[in-house]
């Protein structure tokens, strides 16, 4: 951890640290502290006065059936995004790992969606699945599926899950491919000699060795689904129809900016903060374990 040879200067290192520390003090710690403080305040309906109410905002928020539904919906949404983003990525990576000729071209094309903003992916999918004119919704109607994400909550949920997961497949693919390529070929050879077929090789060698990568990707994708999909929801469905695609991050924004309910929005921010801390801790325990391997 410590270097043996270092420079002894007194002022320079502080000057070097100053910009970063000033920015995080002003834009991270101060507002985060304020978010915690605001979550304990209640504003009167006219916005004329505020009073300290302790944990009342949390009580109100957490006992609100609408918020509980939003929590449940957020978990459902995140699980779906993680599954839809991980499974095809793993499958594609396994296939790409077997390819010799053309592998680098395949890889280049498959990672492109990583560069695409969630909101842009949302726009592309909104068009593909537009009720009457969409290139995909048209054949759907042909086979008798009455597809309309503007009216049907389930259709809307499917749409935001697909758009959110699509761009994430690229990212997961890269990690799975790197994980697969680090598995020693001798292990696979040995299994083949012992007569294990492809299926058995996958379940007994490949998947267990990919477990750390998979775990890491689950954490990253859950974080993505919780926070970065705001752009997808905001640009595609605005949480609708009804509340059927309203996830927690969207509700924080909505309650704070549209409904102007600062105290409750702040309480929700704090709840989200707790979730981020938990996710980060889980992620680091994993990294720790890897280091001690």
């Amino acid at each position, binding site marked *: 951890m410590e270097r043996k040879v270092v420079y002894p200067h007194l002022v320079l290192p502080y000057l070097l640290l100053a910009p970063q520390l000033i920015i995080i003090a002003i834009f991270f710690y101060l507002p985060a502290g304020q978010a915690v403080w605001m979550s304990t305040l209640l504003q009167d309906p006219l916005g004329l006065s505020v009073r300290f109410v302790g944990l009342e905002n949390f009580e109100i928020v957490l006992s609100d059936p609408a918020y509980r539904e939003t929590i449940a919906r957020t978990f459902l949404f995140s699980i779906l995004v993680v599954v839809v983003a991980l499974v095809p990525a793993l499958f594609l990576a396994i296939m790409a790992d077997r390819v010799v000729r053309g592998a680098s071209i395949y890889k280049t094309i498959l990672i492109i969606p990583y560069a695409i903003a969630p909101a842009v992916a949302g726009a592309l999918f*909104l068009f593909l699945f537009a009720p009457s004119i969409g290139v995909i919704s048209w054949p759907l109607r042909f086979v008798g599926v009455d597809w309309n994400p503007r009216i049907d909550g389930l259709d809307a949920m499917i749409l935001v899950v697909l758009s959110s997961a699509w761009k994430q497949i690229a990212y997961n693919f890269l990690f799975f491919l790197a994980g697969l390529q680090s598995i020693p070929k001798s292990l696979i050879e040995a299994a083949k000699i012992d007569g294990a077929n492809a299926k058995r090789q996958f379940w007994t060698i490949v998947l267990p060795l990919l477990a750390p990568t998979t775990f890491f990707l689950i954490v990253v994708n859950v974080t993505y689904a919780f926070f970065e999909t705001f752009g997808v929801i905001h640009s595609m469905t605005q949480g609708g129809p009804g509340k059927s695609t309203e996830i927690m991050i969207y509700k924080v924004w909505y309650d704070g900016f549209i409904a102007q309910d600062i105290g409750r929005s702040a309480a929700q921010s704090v709840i989200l903060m707790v979730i981020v*801390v938990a996710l980060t801790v889980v992620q680091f325990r994993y990294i720790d374990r890897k280091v001690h391997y």
Partner: protein
Amino acid sequence: MAASTGDTYRPKGYWVPHVVIAVGILITAFPLWVAFVASTLTLGQISQAPMQLWPGDQFWVVWKDVLEVGGGGGGRIITAPVSTMMWNSFVMAMVIAVGKIVISLMSAYAIVFFRVPFRTFFFWMIFVTLMLPVEVRIIPTLQVVSDLGMLNSFAGLTVPLIASATATFMFRQFFMTIPDELVEAAKIDGAGPVRFFFDIVLPLSRTTIAALFVILFIYGWNQYLWPLLVTTNQNLDTVVIGLAKQIDTAGGVTEWNKVMATALLALLPPMLVVILMQRWFVKGLVETEK
């Protein structure tokens, strides 16, 4: 025999991965192709279900229109020209990427190469910001930015996002691998910390910088929530925000040909960065985040 025909030996089922990957590529490319086709058609052609899947002749008309005039629902112009918005996105992405790299290089250098009291404390202070994404502190952060008079400015768009725990951590990890002998030799040759940084550390960090640049440029370009909050002046809209504004979610007319042209323009720069810098990016991404 395979060898006698001049062909290489192919195991049974060798084509399966190619077919699966072809399907994967199709799923990746199809939305982009449909977007491109739509951007070359008239609105009338698009609403003729099923829409044709080969390009029409409106490419120049539509793309010129969005770049120079902008787009909006039902013929109303409600966004700035896309060229303006692309410039905004570009400035934002560049300032964020370069800014994050510069201040993270500085702090990592201070933490690793100096005997600073409380340096572990500083490191953790920077590191914990990973747990405070904009999303969990939006209202108070916006309040701070507003108090500082930074709303509707490039400073407001970029400065609050410039701190970077990830970049600081990556540079710190890399700096730890620079051998003590190198520092020793530099000191004996009379190189002070500034000289050592520019002559030795910076050139050695090139790969890390390139990898970070790709990730951070995309991060900056693809921002959504933050520009949505900080700017109300449409001349400062980024192209991702402008794109969302063009879509009428209330049920009115959406000019899909313009929306799709804008979407393609919005994804082109980050896509080019990923493709052109793929080597560093893949290496940096996979090695650092693991």
